[in-house]
């Protein structure tokens, strides 16, 4: 029987670091009363799991897993739906010397094929010995694992029937891998980031002590998925490592009813909760009139923002709309990080809110110099277009170094834009089973090439964009290669005919674009082709993609003959008036640009 959520107060004295393994941290947390709480899709508490019980259950399950006689470090695939079983399995692995691999638990309308394909690709890549999915997800997992050689696959219940071993279990040691995290759902290019115990614990210590300044009385709320770094490291591992109680909503419940997040914050008086910008945006969109004062967000002292481009406009709207609830704009904490760094690289100072750096746009574009503009230079609204505004993502957590380098690899001074490189004890030990990909981003002396662009100002990091190809929509990473590969499923598209990339909308969200070679001259058939391609992309990626048709053999290539995404993007932006582009999506409204007819004209004209 559930009597209520675990308390915020703890009889155990708070210790936010100094552990050498996650198992050791849980051993300590089990000495208190705090723990994890799980809420259903109407916000009702359905399970409560104090750390002390979690430890017992995890150790019991570890003995059952050990009974399977798996080799040390064998992978355990866990379909990471939000629920107590995830915790039980994740920590059982810690005690049993096995490596947990959280897998996506995101189901979309008519998405069965896509989801099963994705699961299958990840299973094939990490070759787990054991796989688990909650009952609702098990049919998909079972279909995905068909023909794969697993020692045991089942729902959590089936594991409870396994015999316990009499042997002593041997928890993962400090130098061993703590978990394997897939950074994207890419079926063609899975990237399994390996994180050692020491790495994640170093990062957690920085996040908790320096980033959040955690203390007694803190409590966390999260709806972030457990298969993303912010959800897993930030809200499964971090609360446990500092013995703080945490309340979970399923991601799906939040997506349907964003206000549940605010209700739960109100109800639990939570002090810490994070989201990408779009989460705050969804709340504002769905907030009902005169409702804000029914929430009490006055205890919320760290409202973290990260995972995708931080959009200050959206955050301001949130703060304004929720001012009656006692929400303080100073609670916003901008962060920068990535799964390869365990989670976080930098944190803006707590209690300072969002700080914006205003720089001269043309100087930045032409010379790569972020020259600050003072208030008087900012002038009137009329010359807004000459100003770029970027969010200050704070200083690196202790033990992390940041360098900004130019294309030649030279380290640049303050306010010079370049590629962001990071180094520290929290970095990944590499991509699982992929030394080549690892070598590409991780140097022998430990520097990680983040693929992001930015500059430093007196030690603070400012992100301006991305060099790498990934498209980020609603915090989700989508690889252009996957979109291009999907396009090739259509009979008209041959390999090398499609090039995908993302462009930024004026509100700084991203839009996926695909430029495709078109041999068809009939406008009606062209329109039909665009329609089918967009439908396919929506079905597989739940993503709206802008499609532009161009004549055959016109996509730019690099000197080695590969498609050049950056050049294609550049040419696309030159060809199209983006201001009008953003007004609508093609295929959805025939009054708007660019229309299939006009695309037909340009296509036909250039192929004559």
């Amino acid at each position, binding site marked *: 029987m559930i009597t209520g959520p675990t308390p915020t107060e703890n009889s155990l004295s708070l210790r936010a670091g100094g552990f050498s393994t996650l198992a050791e941290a849980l051993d300590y947390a089990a000495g208190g009363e705090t723990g994890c709480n799980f809420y259903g899709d109407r916000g009702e508490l359905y399970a409560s799991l104090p750390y002390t019980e979690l430890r017992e259950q995890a150790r019991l399950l570890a003995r059952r897993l050990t009974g399977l006689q798996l080799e040390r470090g064998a992978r355990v695939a866990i379909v990471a739906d939000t629920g107590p079983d995830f915790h039980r399995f994740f920590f059982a692995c810690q005690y049993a010397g096995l490596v947990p691999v959280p897998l996506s638990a995101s*189901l979309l309308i*008519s998405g069965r094929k896509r989801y099963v394909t994705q699961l299958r690709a990840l299973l094939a890549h990490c070759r787990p010995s054991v796989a688990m999915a909650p009952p609702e997800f098990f049919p998909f997992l079972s279909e995905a694992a068909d023909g794969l050689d697993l020692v045991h696959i089942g729902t959590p219940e089936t594991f409870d029937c396994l015999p316990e071993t009499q042997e002593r279990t041997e928890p993962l040691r400090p130098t061993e891998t703590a978990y394997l995290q897939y950074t994207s759902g890419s079926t063609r290019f899975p990237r399994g980031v390996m994180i050692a115990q020491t790495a994640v614990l170093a990062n957690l210590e920085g996040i908790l002590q320096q980033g959040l300044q955690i203390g007694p009385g803190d409590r966390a709320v999260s709806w972030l998925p457990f298969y993303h770094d912010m959800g897993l490291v930030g809200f499964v591992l971090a609360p446990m490592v500092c013995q703080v109680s945490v309340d979970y909503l399923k991601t799906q419940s939040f997506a349907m009813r964003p206000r549940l997040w605010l209700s739960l914050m109100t109800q639990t008086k939570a002090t810490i909760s994070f989201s990408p910008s779009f989460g705050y945006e*969804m709340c504002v969109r769905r907030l009902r009139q005169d409702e804000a004062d029914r929430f009490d967000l006055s205890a919320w002292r760290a409202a973290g923002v990260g995972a995708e481009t931080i959009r200050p406009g959206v955050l301001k709207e949130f703060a304004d709309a929720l001012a009656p609830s006692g929400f303080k704009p100073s609670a916003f904490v901008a962060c920068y990080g990535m799964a390869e760094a365990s989670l976080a690289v930098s944190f803006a100072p707590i209690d300072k809110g969002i700080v914006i750096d205003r720089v001269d746009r043309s100087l930045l574009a032409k010379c790569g110099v972020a020259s600050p503009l003072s208030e008087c230079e900012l002038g009137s609204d009329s010359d807004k277009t000459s100003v770029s505004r970027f969010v200050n993502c704070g200083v690196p957590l202790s033990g992390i170094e940041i360098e900004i380098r130019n294309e030649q690899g030279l380290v640049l001074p303050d306010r010079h834009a370049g590629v962001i490189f990071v180094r520290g004890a929290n970095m990944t030990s590499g991509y699982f089973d992929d030394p080549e990909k690892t070598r590409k981003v991780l140097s022998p002396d430990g520097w990680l090439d983040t693929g992001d662009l930015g500059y430093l100002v007196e030690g603070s990091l400012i992100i301006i964009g991305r060099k790498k190809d990934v498209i980020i929509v609603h915090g989700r990473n989508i690889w252009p290669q996957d979109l291009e590969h999907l396009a090739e499923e259509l009979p008209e598209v041959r390999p090398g005919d499609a090039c995908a990339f993302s462009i930024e909308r004026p509100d700084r969200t991203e839009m996926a674009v695909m430029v495709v070679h078109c041999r068809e001259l009939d406008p009606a058939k062209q329109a039909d082709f665009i329609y089918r391609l967009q439908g*396919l992309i929506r079905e597989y990626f*739940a993503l709206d993609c802008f499609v532009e048709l161009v004549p055959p053999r016109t996509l730019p290539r690099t000197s080695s003959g590969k498609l050049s995404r950056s050049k294609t993007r550049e040419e696309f932006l030159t060809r199209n008036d983006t201001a009008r582009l953003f007004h609508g999506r093609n295929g959805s409204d025939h009054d708007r640009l660019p229309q299939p007819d006009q695309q037909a004209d340009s296509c036909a004209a250039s192929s004559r």
Partner: protein
Amino acid sequence: MALYDTILPRLYEILKPFAQEGQTLSDETELVADLDLDSMKVMEILLEVEERFDISIPLNVIPDVRTIRDFARQIEQLTEQK
């Protein structure tokens, strides 16, 4: 009238705002491929359906819903189970 036939018009009403201009909806219309839906709009629709039909849609039925007919059949089943 069968339950299904009462569900269909109510479902059309919910989905209509997401149809493309000039598009007529039928029970064969594919939700994702034919309508202008991204993942956020899908959530709004699910919410709308849950509230109007007073049902709870389990996560695992969602991936097998392709057409408006599939959707209406699911709603029918969930309503009967209530």
